[in-house]
């Protein structure tokens, strides 16, 4: 019974893969897969899908902090047991969906959710702000330049009304990645909150010989800023590396390869804001997010500068964009110079690309608008 450390390979089972999804389908989903005709958001957070069989499924979408406890999941299971015959699902944006098979079952479920106070906010549908996809941050990661869960909590507190309503010109997808590795793939989000470093790595010569393969550390730098060097440790010459500081773009790839090159720093680290990305092929092709605010400090515990910046962009967009227009489409229509003006964001050299293929983003036309930037 159970794992026997004396005979670790005995009775071992491996390569099972995930359980078959059909086991977890609510009956109404199982009966109507491939037969859905259309859907409608009947109120913020409530989707109704209509099948050609006449069946309906109502999905109630609830925001979660993603970082959740065993007790939290058990409570979510209690709700599913009470209202959904024990079935539930999660979305790709960390929302929970409780599904019921008739309109009459919606309100009792909403009442139960409301009875937990602010724990299970219903929303995240249509032309609003849905949950923020994010990374681990200081709660678990070794390379972050900011926290994740805390920043998300602070931003969502401020944007809460946009989660529970559908008043924006289109959906706004916000994402947070706590360093440039971007586990959260924020590079195609309407608003991206990105942790960045601003100090070059330190070299831990006392440890480098034991933990680091120098050729890999040297090869890891995309700009050739990491070079072989000699160092003296306890009077003995060792092989090490040095960093050409003026070439460093603070990507942190060297630290990923070499634990003896840490670069995180309380003053150096913070947040950059990028906007205008999208993934969908709707109307215009997928777009990358563009860097509009190069640095905001890690002001714990509620990141007021970041919260204010995101809110300001969202409010300007809500007031000015046309129906169906995503933030990136709006910025391209009015022109990026107008974007900076309307959002009241100072334009700096940091928003001008000087990395590879930078020339693609420089303006090579005489078409521009006379905004306040032209003195």
């Amino acid at each position, binding site marked *: 019974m159970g794992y026997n450390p004396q005979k670790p390979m005995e009775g071992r089972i491996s390569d099972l893969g995930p*359980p078959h999804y059909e086991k977890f389908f609510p009956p109404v989903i199982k009966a109507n897969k491939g037969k859905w005709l259309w859907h409608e*958001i009947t109120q913020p957070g409530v989707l109704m899908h209509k099948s050609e069989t006449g069946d309906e499924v109502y999905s109630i979408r609830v925001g979660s902090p993603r970082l959740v406890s065993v007790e939290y999941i058990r409570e979510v299971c209690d709700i599913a047991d009470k209202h959904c015959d024990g079935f539930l699902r999660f979305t790709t944006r960390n929302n929970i969906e409780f599904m019921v098979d008739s309109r009459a079952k919606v309100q009792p479920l909403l009442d139960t959710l409301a009875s937990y106070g602010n724990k299970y906010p219903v929303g995240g549908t*249509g032309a609003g702000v849905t949950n923020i996809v994010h990374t681990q941050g200081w709660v678990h990661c070794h390379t972050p330049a900011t926290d994740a869960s805390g920043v998300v909590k602070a931003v969502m507190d401020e944007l809460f009304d946009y989660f529970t309503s559908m008043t924006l010109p289109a959906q706004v997808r916000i994402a947070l990645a706590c360093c440039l590795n971007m586990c959260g793939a924020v590079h195609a989000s309407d608003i991206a909150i990105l942790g960045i470093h601003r100090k070059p790595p330190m070299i831990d010569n006392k440890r480098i010989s034991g933990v680091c393969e120098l050729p890999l550390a040297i090869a890891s730098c995309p700009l050739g800023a990491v070079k072989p060097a000699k160092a003296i440790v306890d009077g003995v010459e060792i092989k090490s590396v040095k960093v050409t500081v003026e070439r460093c773009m603070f*990507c942190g790839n060297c630290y990923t390869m070499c634990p003896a090159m840490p670069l995180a720093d309380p003053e150096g*680290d913070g947040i950059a804001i990028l906007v205008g990305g999208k993934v969908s092929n709707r109307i215009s092709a997928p777009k990358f997010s563009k860097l509009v605010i190069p640095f905001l400090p890690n002001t714990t515990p509620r990141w007021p500068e970041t919260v204010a910046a995101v809110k300001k962009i969202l409010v300007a967009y809500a007031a000015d964009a046309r129906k169906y227009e995503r933030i990136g489409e709006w910025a391209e229509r009015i022109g990026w110079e107008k974007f900076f003006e309307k959002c009241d964001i100072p334009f700096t050299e940091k928003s001008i690309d000087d990395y590879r293929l930078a020339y693609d983003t420089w303006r090579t036309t005489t078409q521009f608008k006379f905004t306040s930037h032209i003195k």
Partner: protein
Amino acid sequence: MAKRETPLLDQLESGPWPSFVTDIKRQAETKPECWDILGILELSYKERITHWKHGGIVGVFGYGGGIVGRYADVPELFPGVEHFHTVRVAQPASKYYTSANLRQLMALWEKYGSGMTNFHGSTGDIILLGTRTENLEPFFWDLTHDMGQDLGGSGSNLRTPANCIGESRCEWSCYDTEDVCHSLTLHYQDEIHRPAFPYKFKFKFSGCPNDCVASIARSDISVIGTWRDAIRIDQAAVKEYVAGNYPANGGAHSGRNWGKFDINKEVIDLCPTECMWMEGAELKIDEKECTRCMHCINVMPRALRPGLDKGASICVGAKAPILDGAQFATLIVPFIKVSKDNDFEELIEFIEKVWDWWMEVGKNRERVGETMQRVGLPTFLSVMGIEPIPQHVKEPRSNPYIFWREEEVEGGFARDIDEFRAKHKA
């Protein structure tokens, strides 16, 4: 483990969005090591820097992925999180669950882990956050034996594939994303669990060009549903939209008064190919000009549906910015039928052709999109045995620097300089 004072984190307990701090505190009542999660996080909030060490290779026998090693750099202060390894558990397609299944998994995690989780990680796995090395094998034993479940991927291997909700609850899905995702995940268990690649490799399956699983932005092989015949039109429903009886975009804009629905302004004029028009009360679409962007279908879901000749486009090579900048996946196969009838044979053949080539020429830590960029799209297409077509590019190149091959040029490259000089004095 003693209760920790967390004056900074306590400030994240107020406000309307659910608080992870409140949740961790409640879990700490039965799992006191959660106080050390809060303690080490509070220290990070105070000092504004992480307190997790770099790396630490741990795992279960026979697997090279699925567990991410993590150690605190201040274990003397927070012994409860001295080891804090992450366990990735492969999620079922579309992330449907039963409460019975989740309760069983939670009981295991209460026994072997910290009591904290992520539902879910960015790639799609269930993330069980924080356990000690000695718990890994017993946990894995119970996970496989008692639950019949398994770990997901990490490191330089195939990461746990993910899919959009697909046909199970969406009318737009052009193939069964759940079936493909599940079938290929089982087919490639070895590639998921035993790293043999130059770097990570991701598949993601979206049922339509709305791409709800963001496959075109973050997967090495992105399979996006599409169709090659006409959008199906229900003219009676079009009239209902025009009359304002059906809400536009499935009611997604109902929180603001945008005025009466205007099919010209909201649909026809926004069509990127201008392939739609009204003839009297009938909506017409020139399907040969349509690029299937989904806008008209999104706006009028009760009137318009994707065609019947459905399949998928395959795009290759997306990644986040590290190192040479972000890349979207490039369209390689415009249309492929995705069918279980032949066990997704064509898709599998495509995937393995990419792998065979990338495993040979890809450099250490080079995503396949970077390898494609390094060798050039024409070379990649030739390796794949795919005829170059205009659909592979946004526009033709604007520089004349063609890598002509010797066999393409009459007489080849070899020439005699003396012969040349006999006619052309230096």
